[in-house]
């Protein structure tokens, strides 16, 4: 690695897309919003938004490291939220509702993982299928109407502060810590990288690569279900289609964060930077009252910029 690159701080070296976007966007919004962007209230809301995205994007990093992707998480969040709300209406209580949501994620993740790892089917096709399945189920169960009337517990959880930290942020931080240890300090983490980088090496080492491969989809879906539970608290209602498109933001966050779709190259902390960049972009455009449709355009542009930056890096990989 040339000296010039080594001298750069890690974020600019390993996740240039996210780092540059973050700096530029924060500067633009801070300067143009007349103090509204940097107000305490907005920062709390921004951090909760980023936290929610991270609950999906962090496990998505594992999926992308295996040269896969999980398109089903957004639709699953709708379904898991509806399941949780229905469970609460049915008197299961908050813990029961959480377990019901996680169970939904577990099942869908297991289906994804089994079809991809053992069935040998492309992740794109499988998760596109389960995406439709989850979305359809959620709509069928609710007739497209939000489920509500289950009390205040989810809203209180969403708004709870642990010291100065909003609960969703604390949950995301805890998940980051957990997944960081999982990726970098356990055999499983090394095997995830190997599934994407060199499956033959894994086979020769006597590892059940398929189980590892399937596990990342279970992880992804379970975390999405957890996010769905928190999301129900934001409006204190479970909307069946509320999270459609989250998979898009999550995948963009992962790619912005310097994780490549090829050969198991990636960086978990980069995903935090990527999610922050997307959160800042969406929140800042909100503060400036930009049309929501144009926000999607902006995230799309950011994604393309990230891919361009990623390609340039990839092109120089061989020495």
């Amino acid at each position, binding site marked *: *690695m040339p000296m010039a690159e080594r001298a750069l701080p890690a974020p600019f070296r390993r996740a240039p897309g996210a780092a540059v976007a973050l700096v530029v966007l924060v500067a633009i919004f801070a300067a143009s919003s007349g103090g509204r962007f940097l107000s305490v209230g907005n920062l709390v809301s921004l951090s909760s938004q980023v936290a929610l995205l991270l609950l999906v994007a962090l496990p998505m990093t594992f999926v992308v490291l295996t040269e896969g992707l999980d398109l089903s998480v957004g639709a699953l969040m709708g379904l898991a939220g509806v399941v949780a709300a229905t469970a609460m209406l049915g008197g299961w209580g908050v813990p029961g509702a959480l377990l019901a949501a996680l169970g939904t994620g577990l099942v869908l993740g297991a289906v994804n993982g089994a079809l991809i790892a053992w069935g040998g089917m492309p992740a794109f096709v499988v998760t596109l299928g389960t995406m439709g399945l989850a979305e359809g189920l959620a709509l069928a169960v609710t007739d497209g109407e939000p489920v509500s009337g289950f009390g205040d517990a989810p809203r209180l959880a969403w708004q709870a502060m642990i010291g100065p930290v909003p609960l969703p942020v604390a949950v995301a931080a805890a998940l980051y810590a957990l997944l960081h*240890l999982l990726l970098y*300090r*356990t*055999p499983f983490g*090394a*095997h995830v*990288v*190997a599934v*994407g*980088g*060199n499956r*033959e*090496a*894994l*086979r*020769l*080492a*006597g*590892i059940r690569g398929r189980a590892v491969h399937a596990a990342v989809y279970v992880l992804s879906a379970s975390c999405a279900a957890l996010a769905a539970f928190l999301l129900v608290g934001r409006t204190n209602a479970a909307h069946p289609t509320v999270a459609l498109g989250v998979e898009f933001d999550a995948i963009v966050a992962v790619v912005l964060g310097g994780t490549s779709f090829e*050969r*198991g*190259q*990636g960086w978990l902390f980069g995903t935090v930077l990527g999610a922050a960049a997307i959160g800042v972009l969406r929140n800042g455009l909100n503060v400036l009252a930009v049309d929501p449709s144009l926000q999607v355009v902006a995230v799309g542009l950011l994604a393309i910029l990230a891919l361009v930056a990623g390609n340039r890096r990839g092109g*120089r*990989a061989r*020495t």
Partner: protein
Amino acid sequence: MNGPAPLMALRGVGKSFPGVRALDGVDLEVFAGEVHVILGQNGAGKSTLIRILGGACRPDEGHVEADGRRVAFASPAMAARMGVAVIHQELTAVPHLDLARNIFLGREAAFRNRLGLLDLGAMRAAARRALDAVGLRADVRTEAAALDVAGQQLLEIAKALSQDSRVLVMDEPTASLSVPEAERLFAIIRRLRGEGHGIVYISHRMPEVKALGDRITVMRDGRRVALLRRGEAGADALVAMMVGRAVALSRPPAQTPGAVLLEAEGLSAPGIADASIRLRAGEVVGLAGLVGSGRTELLRALFGAERGAGAVRLGGRPLPADPVRAAAAGLGLVPEDRKRQGLALGRPVRDNLLSASFRRLARRGVAWPARLEREARSLVSRLSIRTAGTGVRVGTLSGGNQQKCVFGRWLSAEARILLLDEPTRGVDVAAKAEIHATIRARAGSGCAVLLVSSELPELIHLCDRAYVLRDGRIVGELAGAALTEAAVLRLAVAQEAQAHAHG
């Protein structure tokens, strides 16, 4: 050899694949403290033998013994636990894992602390010891992708040694090593032999066979045709046993080179600086230097795959840095890493052979299948590619035949300037001679050839002239009588001790 039981043995092992009898009643014994060389052409059954030894596949007939007891390896991991490690020629590193995690892939449990987390300190210390044992000086925290091919090979060996393997199976370990690196490896092999390891060593290089082999098994067509002790047969006799006939090596006829076809001036790119070279029609020009000296990079820069400053001229006209235009202008690059850069392994032989010449073969934009098939068949027979047909997937062919396919592509494209990177790496003696003959024939028909080879005898033998690279710079040009192994080595290794390091 009576007395102690062999560390490992194959007894009457047979293995068939659809349409191929890969092994037929093969016996092999590996004793503690010996280097057992296996010689054989492509398709002689060496790869299958390695797979059976390493637990990657099971024999149809016969059985495997370890310490005199019958065993059945269900997997490579089980073979590893029984003390058999295979160092594959195709590298098995995970590119974006660090060296420590690569070495202990699948064996991380040994480094778990009370919390079940990896004790990275202990793992890295152990990895450092493993790398020291093979003399690979690299930070164990760097990713394997940062190592060059030679470094990754040493990593493989370090990995095997760290498993306390008693039997090491090495598949052409020196194929991508420079001379000093190979010497270092031989020292390691001799030390391991002294420590009571048994080493199965597959190589095509006669000097190595002579220097290392305590016993030699010669294979042909899936059978063992000879088992010899050190010194029982000379190189010529061994080659004759492998091929079943005498092979004449090609001799470069005296050539009067023609016009300058390709010319580079002050060419710079990642890994090379200020390189100027000239290729004339009818010439075979060598590019010598140690692994990592910038040979591959120079070829790629000429082809336009990667180029910084400097100019390349083709027949006097500037050639832009664009591989597509280079190919259209008559340049052909045969890369070193054929699996990664040269071939679409899942595609048939035919597609791989013709992928650069569809345009030439097409008539008014339509490439007729019959015409393609005819061309592909003609290439298969001209290059003696051993395949069941042109529709067979390239990935199923042996290494030498894959290499011939890459070569055939540029023959078919009628490339006038061939850039060849280690075209005979991992190729058996007979195929090597065929490739040599093809190279000379191309030059004879007015092409210019630039040849990178780590095998100096090959380079000296084939080339009219050679440039020598060191640390990315051309440090000399040798031609005619001045082109000798000693002269090339002197130029290539000067300051080597200070300058050459991995990582």
